[in-house]
């Protein structure tokens, strides 16, 4: 996949999915503690979310880091905007900022 293809794919995914998580592993089988924690938080808030497993696609793994200028995985996007990695998502969850942000982004029911 060329660099443009990866970027186009990312743009499509973060636009089509109000809550999009780039992670190591899958929501059912996270393969990294940080990715697992973000999945846990999203499940706790209870909003639908899509995931992409960067371990299956080295081009995506590098491409997403360049796209967001963020060196690590996981990466959470809400309505196309990069929210942060595990630290920031956890911090926002604990401060009460995350839940309203996620609920507004995902249509009820």
């Amino acid at each position, binding site marked *: 996949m060329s660099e443009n293809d990866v970027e186009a794919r990312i743009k499509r995914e973060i636009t089509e999915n109000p809550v999009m998580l780039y992670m190591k592993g899958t929501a059912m089988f996270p393969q990294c503690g940080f990715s697992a924690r973000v999945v846990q938080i999203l499940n706790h808030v209870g909003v639908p979310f899509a995931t992409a497993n960067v371990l299956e696609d080295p081009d995506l793994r590098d491409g997403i880091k360049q796209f967001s200028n963020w*060196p690590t995985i996981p990466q959470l996007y809400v309505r196309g905007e990069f929210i*942060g990695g595990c630290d*920031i998502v956890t911090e926002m969850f604990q401060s009460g900022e995350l839940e309203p942000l996620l609920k507004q982004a995902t249509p009820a029911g």
Partner: protein
Amino acid sequence: MAMQAGEIESLIKAALPDAVVVVEDLAGDGDHYAATVTSERFRGLSRVKQHQLVFQALGGRMGGALHALALQTNVPDQENA
């Protein structure tokens, strides 16, 4: 190639001279650290931008030599609140 806590602190301070940096070695393997960085430079910036400033200070080691850095950023007066 792992990193030392002192190296992390000095790299961050080189880029953010006013920063108060507290680094904690989480696993003793030079690969898993937690750091709290407090700097006036963060004022008005989003959390993502604050963290990106720290990553830049670490000169691309984040996600490479430094596998895991649990990062907390603050502006000075927030810390005393």
